[in-house]
């Protein structure tokens, strides 16, 4: 399933090339060493938001590694994603402390309320719902991150409110542009 993101549609070819330049920069920085594959993938994901076939092929060509090798590494690590992400990313922590404090229920009901399965993006591409195996903010349990923001001591209601607020912001900005 590939939902084109609003941003990538707008940006066009030019932005695409700029992003490859960022990957090139990281390749040069590590002197095209094959051992630096993970760092290169990190910066590629930072630039593109995800790693698709084109990017993986590019990296494998540049580092002279078999595509299977690059694909193998990219799919081994949870951090790398091969699908485009939503405009917002909500990561619900399912570490032990959060679990004990009811994060399991929050994620189950979020999935229901947002009509999306954990690990995937809503149909309109506005939100990706993810889970994490502990974000190390156990004193804030149950906690989650919404984009870069850390939200602690959450309930289902507060989570939905925060997500809706984010979405509303986007909608408002889009309207202004029109």
């Amino acid at each position, binding site marked *: 399933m590939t939902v084109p993101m609003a941003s990538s549609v707008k940006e066009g070819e030019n932005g695409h090339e700029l992003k490859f330049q960022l990957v090139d920069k990281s390749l040069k920085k590590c002197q095209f060493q*094959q*051992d*630096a*594959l*993970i*760092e290169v*993938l*990190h910066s590629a994901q930072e630039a593109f938001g995800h790693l698709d076939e084109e990017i993986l092929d590019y990296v494998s060509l540049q580092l002279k590694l078999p595509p299977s090798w690059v694909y*193998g*590494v990219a799919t*081994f*690590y*949870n*951090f*790398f994603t091969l699908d485009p992400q939503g405009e917002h990313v909500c990561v619900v922590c*399912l*570490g*032990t*402390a959060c*679990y*004990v*404090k009811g994060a399991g229920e929050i994620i189950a009901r979020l999935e229901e309320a947002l009509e999306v399965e954990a690990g995937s993006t809503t149909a309109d591409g506005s939100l990706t719902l993810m889970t*994490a*195996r*502990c*974000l*190390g*903010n*156990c*004193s*804030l*349990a149950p*906690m989650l991150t919404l984009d870069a923001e*850390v*939200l*602690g001591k959450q309930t289902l209601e507060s989570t939905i409110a925060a997500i809706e607020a984010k979405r509303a912001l986007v909608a408002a900005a889009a309207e202004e542009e029109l």
Partner: protein
Amino acid sequence: MNLTALTELAEQELQRQQDLKLRLFLCYSTPCISAGAEAVKVALEELIKEQDLAAQLEVVATGCMGPCSRGPLLRIVVAGEERTYEKVTPEQACEILLHGLAGNPIETGALPADIPFFARQTKIVLGNNGWIDPGKIEHSIARDGYAALAYVLHEMSPEEVCNEIKKSGLRGRGGGGYPAGVKWNLVRKSPAERKYVVANGDEGDPGAYMDRTIMESDPHRVLEGMAIAGYAVGAEQGYIYVRGEYPLAAARLTKAIRDAERCGLLGSRVLDSSFNFRIDLRVGAGAFVCGEETALMTSIMGRRGQPVPRPPYPAQSGLWGYPTLINNVESFANVAPILHRGADWFAGFGTEKSKGTKVFALCGEVVNSGLIEVPMGISLRDIVFEIGGGLPDGGQFKAAQTGGPSGGCIPAEYLDTPVDYESLKELGSIMGSGGLIVMNETSCMPDVAKFFMEFCMDESCGKCVPCRVGTVEMYELLKRITDGSAMLGDLETLEELCGLVQETSLCGLGMTAPNPVLNTLKYYRAEYLAHIEENCCPAGVCQLDQVPLLKLPEHAAELAIFKEEN
């Protein structure tokens, strides 16, 4: 920089700090920021600008102070007396500043200095936390940062350093508890043209954030420990491997490495000696198994982070086949204090076999959750009820979980057990990296076991069959127990599988994955039986709405509904 310059810098900085009329320490770690520390900082800075106070005082944005559930925390020292204020609002913070500056600090909101949370702790590793700005190397240096490295480089031989660490009794804080000095000596004696030092900051255990806090609050301490280790074993290159989930730790370490290199405390000719040591950061990409030492090294080399059989141990053949010393971040953070104050001083803390202190992330159902450092051998009861302040809302203590997915749950009757490597192992749990999660009567033990098994199943790297297949099967059995479709025989199968996976897995992940199951079966067997025989979850967590397959004929009516639905 040489030794004299280092001492001078330390003295200069100390003098500058003493010349200030007031220093405010604002906890600026993630929990406090999410509780509102940012607004407090802005308010203080505005006030300072408005009243032109910048010459008289400074606000230090520090790393974690510990009692995370009480943030934002603000600490001041007036006339040698220290006060920590909890749950500070921007307005209160301004009051605290103005009164502190006038020399009559306010009392409202101040935590009593003698509360057990502070009084029962012994801070060695976390000694600088809450007193320095992790982004300012001079703050570190003013608190003896890099002094141990300077001493070691000029006064001690590598062998002496290894022996000092051995004498201190320091054991690995990453979970296994292997004597650090022995490991250092092994690497030192391995003949090779190149060697490496690796700091394990992968901290994948759910419910643990000690290493994160150390790296975020006092990064120079870790770097110094690594450099000392590099000198002791004869390595010139170090790697510090940080979890991808910890971007702030990675950013602070990057800055710390750059600052230290600029000051000549890392890089070539460290402190004007003939010792060269570079440290590079490697950021993980979200795989629990990469905390395992051999998997971590394959990950540093840019490959799929799968473990390889040991021996050969990393001390003989690690990164790119060269001898590699790998220790946990907290282990490295202990090194500088040991060499600065002596092995005997360090060995004065703790028990006979477990020396020093241990940092725990105390969380779950406990009043004072946060980061604590206690001497080894303290009882669990003291940690949970004294330091932690007991359970909130009149909750009943049911279990303390240590060691994450490799550990187990310790029931109430063992609350007086001293916390050290051996005692916890005897109870079927492990010290682990230091997560300590308190559970009350609303936690269901089979469900907790299932939670950890699901974790291991997801995180199994798939290289060896026992772990890849065994965790799935064990998970299915636990799922059956918690959804009501298990039979008594399943319990036996589960136990048998546990033994099998334990004994035949390639790495620690599989070998320890059955621990939470075996341990809860040992102490909470009645709860498992209640699920299976009485179809009842005493904690009220599990739905138990399924029926055992073999009993299905008896439930023909339900079966019909089932068919209809599908």
